[in-house]
């Protein structure tokens, strides 16, 4: 199936297929596609290594318990699915500094890491705030 080896599909085809994935998700597990709760659960699991009683009683971790659920597996699946897709088309490439970033800010990995990390902190804080 050579279509699987193509580097890029039409964004409309990819989008429509993603819509179908949401149908599958609702039909099979009654779940909607989501990702950020998994980050809450994962940090809860990590913190439980060190302060399990505190995690068990912190209101946010009572609300979103540190456990491996449907979404945690979905998130793992995203990584795997992307890997397979990229490998099939040769689009897999180990790279730290994205081209557009490098053009503007230079090749420094440290600079890229610092902003990427800070961006991740801010993004997730906002996501969880908005999520309620």
């Amino acid at each position: 199936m050579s279509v699987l080896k193509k580097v890029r599909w039409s964004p409309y085809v990819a989008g429509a297929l993603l819509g179908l994935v949401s149908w599958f998700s609702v039909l099979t597990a009654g779940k909607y596609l989501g990702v950020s709760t998994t980050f809450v659960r994962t940090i809860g699991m990590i913190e439980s290594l060190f302060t399990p009683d505190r995690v068990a009683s912190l209101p946010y971790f009572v609300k979103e318990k540190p456990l491996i659920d449907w979404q945690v597996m979905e998130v793992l699946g995203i990584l795997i699915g992307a890997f397979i897709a990229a490998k099939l088309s040769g689009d897999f490439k180990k790279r730290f500094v994205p081209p557009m970033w490098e053009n503007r800010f230079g090749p420094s990995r440290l600079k890229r890491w610092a902003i990427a990390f800070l961006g991740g902190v801010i993004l997730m804080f906002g996501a969880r705030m908005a999520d309620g």
Partner: protein
Amino acid sequence: MSWLASFTEKEVIRTTDLILGLITGIFFGFFLQKGQALKYDKQLGMLRFKDFTILKVMITAILVGMVGIYFFVDMGIGKLSLKPTVLGANIIGGLIFGLGWGMLGYCPGTALGATGEGRFDAFWGGALGMLVGAGIFAEVYSYIKDTFLKWGDLGKLSIPQVVGIQHWVVILIIWVVLVLALVAVEKKKL
């Protein structure tokens, strides 16, 4: 293994759910990658209004998803999952999210997907940062859950409910508007 196992015993998590989650995610990541939606250059391109690939993928996904899901709900084989509209939290949180997204160039899902493509800034920078951000929010939550997180709480709203129009009519209107928007974007070669 028992530390890990303790997280699957605490609640009744059916194994089928876990497998279905994995399968769903694999397809999710696969199609995102093929649509080029995982790339930093595409996400920043979108935020800078120079490359509308991400918009095309998202809007098409919404248009297709919407139809199926409401069909399932009408058939009684699916349920909507409405989140409460809380104006303060939604707006401020959204703005903060946007700031972080612009800095990182990936969102939570695409960061994992980009990692799968070999773009390791998404993992060592992005995903680790996201874990820290989640941890920080977990601490802050205790202080804001009964105050800020309740400002402008309008409850669980849906567009059909608010405008008082049957959902299939709303879906049709949204289809018309969004398809016209996509046609306009294509015409301008964005």
